[in-house]
């Protein structure tokens, strides 16, 4: 009986590996490879509370389960929204889902963007590619509480014009007088008269007070590295820079070991990290 003292302690025995079934309400094509699912919970549109930055494990029947950030509005929480880029077996299976189909959901998991800590400050969001999806809930939160923040800047880089996510919303946000929204593309093929170049190019021009800025970054790791460097160069403090990390995950609850990042488990301690907490391991290759 006494293998470990732990086993004797009372604990909650709900199996964290069991999915709940959600029904697909709508599938919207965002780009040629990216789509947004709106999902209704088992209790007909039951609320799904989450904090901006958190993710779910989504299960495609018989194919597999993958971590996907929640990209909907944390204020309304219904339906549950995920934006997914089809890159492999599971995400391609999800791309084929139709209205009425079932999808398994576990979550929400992980840490959140510090939207409360950023109150009273400038907020600078820098994202690349699908990285806009996990940041959209933070942006929604800020919009819903616009008076709580100073200047709000969103810098977004996509590969090409056709890879721009949430195009209509971006246009709408860009039209607001108290938001600075800039979009850039890596390469301009076809009709594009906007910014061309990596997203970091937008940083020097953006209007924010570095000393009073909280920066939220999500994108490919190299993009995050250079973004951090440029923000620090402008005088933003390390402790006010946040990044969302990505690693292979098989469980999201600290059992499977796949997402280890130094002494962190990205599923539990992340995915959102304060840069100063991971600074010493962030640059280490193949960690």
């Amino acid at each position, binding site marked *: *009986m*006494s*293998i*470990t*003292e*732990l*086993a*004797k302690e009372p*604990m*909650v*025995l*709900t*199996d*964290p*590996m*069991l*999915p709940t*079934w959600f029904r697909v309400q709508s599938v919207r094509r965002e780009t040629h490879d990216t789509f947004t699912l709106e999902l209704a919970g088992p209790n007909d549109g039951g609320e799904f509370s989450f904090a901006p930055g958190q993710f779910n494990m989504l*299960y495609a*029947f*018989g*194919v*597999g*389960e993958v971590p996907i950030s929640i990209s909907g509005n944390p204020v309304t929480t219904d339906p549950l929204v995920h934006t997914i880029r089809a*890159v*492999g077996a599971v995400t391609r299976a999800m791309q084929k889902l139709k209205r009425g189909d*079932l999808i*398994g959901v576990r979550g929400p998991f992980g840490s959140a963007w510090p939207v409360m800590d950023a109150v009273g400050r400038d907020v600078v969001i820098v994202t690349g590619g699908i990285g806009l999806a996990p940041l959209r809930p933070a942006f929604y939160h800020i919009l819903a509480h616009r008076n709580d923040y100073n200047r709000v800047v969103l810098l977004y880089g996509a590969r090409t014009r056709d890879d721009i996510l949430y195009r209509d919303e971006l246009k709408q946000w860009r039209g607001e007088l108290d938001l600075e929204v800039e979009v850039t593309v890596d390469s301009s093929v076809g009709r594009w008269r906007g910014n061309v170049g990596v997203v970091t190019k937008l940083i020097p021009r953006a209007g924010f007070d570095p000393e009073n800025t909280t920066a939220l970054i999500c994108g490919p790791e*190299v*993009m995050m*590295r*250079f973004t951090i*460097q440029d923000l620090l160069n402008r005088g933003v403090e390390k402790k006010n820079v946040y990044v969302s990390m*990505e*690693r*292979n995950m*098989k*469980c999201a*609850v*600290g*059992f*499977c*070991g*796949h997402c*280890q990042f*130094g*002494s962190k*488990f990205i599923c*539990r301690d992340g995915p959102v990290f304060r840069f100063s907490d991971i600074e*010493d391991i962030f*640059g*280490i*290759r*193949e*960690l």
Partner: protein
Amino acid sequence: MSSCDTKRPSRVIDRNALDDLLGTLRSRGYTVIGPRICDQAIVYDEIQTTDDLPVGWTDEQDAGSYRLKKRGDDALFGYVLGPHSWKKYLFPSAQRLWQVTRDGEDISLSPEGGEEVNRAFIAVRACELHAMAIQAKVFIGSEFVDPTYHVRSKNAFTLAVNCGQAGKTCFCASMNTGPRVDGGFDLALTEVLDGARHEFLVEVGSEIGAEVLGTVDSREARLEDQHTVDDIVANTVAQMGRSVDTADIGDLLKRNHANAKWDEIAERCLSCANCTMVCPTCFCSTVEDVTDLSGNHAERWRRWDSCFTMDFSYIAGGQVRSSTKSRYRQWMTHKLGTWHDQFGASGCVGCGRCITWCPVAIDITEEVAAIRRTEVEDATEPLKRGA
């Protein structure tokens, strides 16, 4: 239990009584599992009586080598550890997590983890008790609890054994995990084999342990029996083949991520994952999703995985740890270093299995010493522009 008093054997039993004790466990519904010989190695499997144990056998181990040898006496526990560890029962190498059936609009999910067999683990060594406690922290020590692990560990009975000898690859003494069992057992034995005398000194670690012991013939332990345990354990410590200097070990490994030693190890390491399979604390797993032909019945399985496999760190675009160097570094730094940050203890208990079962004789104790000898200043790679 009073805390400062070291536990002492209170009773003494003989081999017949030990057989009776196994009988009691069986009659109480336990499946009794202990060491036995299979394919020229000592493994854990179901046993009926003490005859099933590797009676009179011992093991000779060294880096990359293992063989069984006759002892010339009738010792029941005169060997150390084989390739199996108890995680095989507590965290099975393949386990169905759930199954689901889809029928038109309906979907029904059946979780696993119904009634589990209760198991009695026989001849659990000190390092293994530590390993179990360490692995339990992963599965039942955080806000998320693996219910099947919980049931298995809660329902297990542990009959521990103090090691009467150490193998050449053992280094539990330096890891503070043995060779004397120091808690976490129901009953603990010390085998005494001295000429015609063949007895087992018994320490009681739990109420159920006391109950089970109460069902068999035993005599009161004398003061000299207690000294006997001390002598046997001291002798085992003196034989210990290897050791690790654990001073500052976590930081040592973390600040040496760029040490050239990792490249040298990588030249030998086959990335075969043997070390992670035999390690009693390694807990990494993957999941596998399968469907039947109709496509309406699906199952999810969990299987042991290893940080040495290529796929382990795959994310779109490639592996995070594509080199063998980075995988070995991850394994060893985790075991001896970052494990402390995550779970408040070392992930290595010094059982030596990874050394014995490495096909190319890579030795974690030697490698950590080599890192220490060749300590370099932190060399975080500079940011390169241009991506």
